[in-house]
């Protein structure tokens, strides 16, 4: 059996024995926790279907008297939400692709290659995890506005082309892969890049699914940078569009929640596509 198949191993016979507690109690707990998790999110649907009068009336609504499905279309009348959606999609999509290109390659270098300065380089990359984005935001904004990159897709995308989290994650996935595979390919005369492309990358499918989901979700929901880096309506993204429904003294809850549900759709879809890798069987046994 090739060792790499451990990535997808799902040996439930072993796993059953890991569980120490009472089955039934655990199951009950699970149901409760799942409800606690999902009910608040379902409440968003209730909020989205309220009428304007219900929003303002101050009485919390359990189920709207007359569900306003039209709130979803009202959204698109209030602002160019189609365009916001497209911008968010271009931004999050391009960044996700960039991560898929760069993070595994860099992760591979740190996981499997030996070279002087490796430790320092790795710590340097990791240290970038520890700085809140808004700390480096202003210098980057100054640079980008000098380059004329404000209100452009490259302006939205470039600051996030790769990140330490993705590199770290990829390194953790690649480390347990057996060195013998690499050595064998080297003996066959494959180039280093060829080894990465043909030997390593094919083993990483579940890992790449995880990486792309987390990256996409994170960038799709990014707020601060698109707020700063755009000042034209046609370049704004969905999370920024949603704030339009906070009036100065009250929030238009129905439209905000409707927008939030629309915001949630693509990430949910992405999740459905990747979930078999995510919740079924992945191994990060090299996590350290």
């Amino acid at each position, binding site marked *: 059996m090739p060792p790499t198949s451990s990535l997808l191993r799902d040996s439930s016979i*072993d796993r059953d024995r890991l569980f120490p507690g009472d089955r039934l109690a655990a199951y009950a707990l699970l149901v409760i926790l799942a409800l606690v998790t999902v009910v608040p999110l379902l409440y968003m649907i209730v909020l989205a279907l309220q009428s304007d009068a219900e929003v303002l009336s101050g009485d919390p609504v359990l189920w709207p008297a007359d569900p306003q499905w039209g709130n979803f279309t009202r959204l698109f009348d209030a602002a160019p939400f189609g365009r916001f959606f497209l911008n968010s999609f271009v931004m999050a999509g391009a960044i996700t692709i960039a991560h898929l290109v760069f993070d595994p390659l860099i992760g591979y270098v740190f996981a499997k290659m030996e070279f002087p300065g490796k430790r320092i380089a790795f710590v340097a990359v990791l240290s970038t995890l520890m700085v809140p984005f808004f700390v480096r935001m202003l210098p980057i904004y100054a640079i980008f506005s000098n380059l004329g990159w404000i209100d452009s897709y490259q302006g939205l995308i470039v600051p996030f082309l790769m990140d330490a989290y993705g590199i770290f994650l990829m390194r953790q996935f690649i480390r347990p892969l057996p060195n013998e595979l690499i050595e064998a390919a080297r003996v066959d005369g494959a180039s280093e890049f060829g080894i990465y492309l043909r030997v390593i990358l094919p083993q990483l499918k579940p890992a790449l699914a995880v990486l792309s989901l987390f990256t996409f979700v994170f960038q799709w929901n990014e707020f601060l940078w698109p707020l700063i880096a755009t000042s034209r309506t046609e370049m704004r993204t969905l999370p920024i569009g949603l704030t339009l429904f906070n009036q100065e003294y009250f929030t238009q809850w129905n439209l905000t929640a409707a927008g*939030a549900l629309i915001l949630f759709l693509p990430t949910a879809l992405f*999740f459905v596509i990747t979930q078999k890798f995510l919740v079924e069987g992945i191994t990060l046994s090299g996590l*350290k």
Partner: protein
Amino acid sequence: MNRRRQAATAWLFLSPAVIFFVLLFFLPIGNQLLTGLYDADGVNFVGLDNFTRALGDPEVVHSFLITLGYAAGTLVVGTAVGLGLAVILNQAIPGRTLFRSVLLIPYLTSVSIIGLLWRNILDPQVGILNRLLDQFGLPGQTWLSTHPLATIVGITVWSSAGYTMVLFLAGLQGIPGLYYEAARIDGAGPWRRFFSITLPLLTPTTLFVSIIGLISTLQQFALPYIVTGGGPGNATSLYAHRLFLVAFNDNDFGYASALSVLLLLVVLVLSLVQLKIGDRADAAH
């Protein structure tokens, strides 16, 4: 020769990362460090004044302390809940995949939405939770006023438990069944097996979860910003929120830069300590 060629190849592969991180991380951060040595207007060189000022600033010290509390609470509760869920969902129980998926959904939701949603639910007067409690004849809660920080911890755990669970599930699946067989033969009970096999062998995962968790909780900004605005009083004004206020509210970028450098140092030190402890624990097994 071969070794030199591999080093050259490694650095060639790394070159996009080098360019990216230098231009978009290290130069801006270095710039930040420089700014931290100047006053609010960026005109006068004040040396380390901004740094010493931070240590004597009651608001900053307060925000730092509550951030430590927030991080500790979130890490302990979040790790426990995530691990518990992973252990339960690691069995062959009906609806396993559905449960795993449902629990992960909050992690896919934007933090601004989560903040707005919980603010709406928890409002003691006009929120849905008290309305429901009232319907069942139960007394209403005022958690946002009486236990604001714990509430923020709770919301954080709620939204990230699924993510922690996934990481632990992955870790659990990496533990070879062999060990359990051996323990069984030795007559170890299920709890004993959990504490002497599962937990120690999960150390790498726990370490990853806690380091990433520490880094993100110490930088938590959006949740208190949206849910409580840092209140009541300054009870939930976490460090990054304070830093944001100093920069964008007070317009004091010199001081804000100094605060961000201090945060970087703290996170770095704590992460290194954690790694060290983790390595030792790892080596022990």
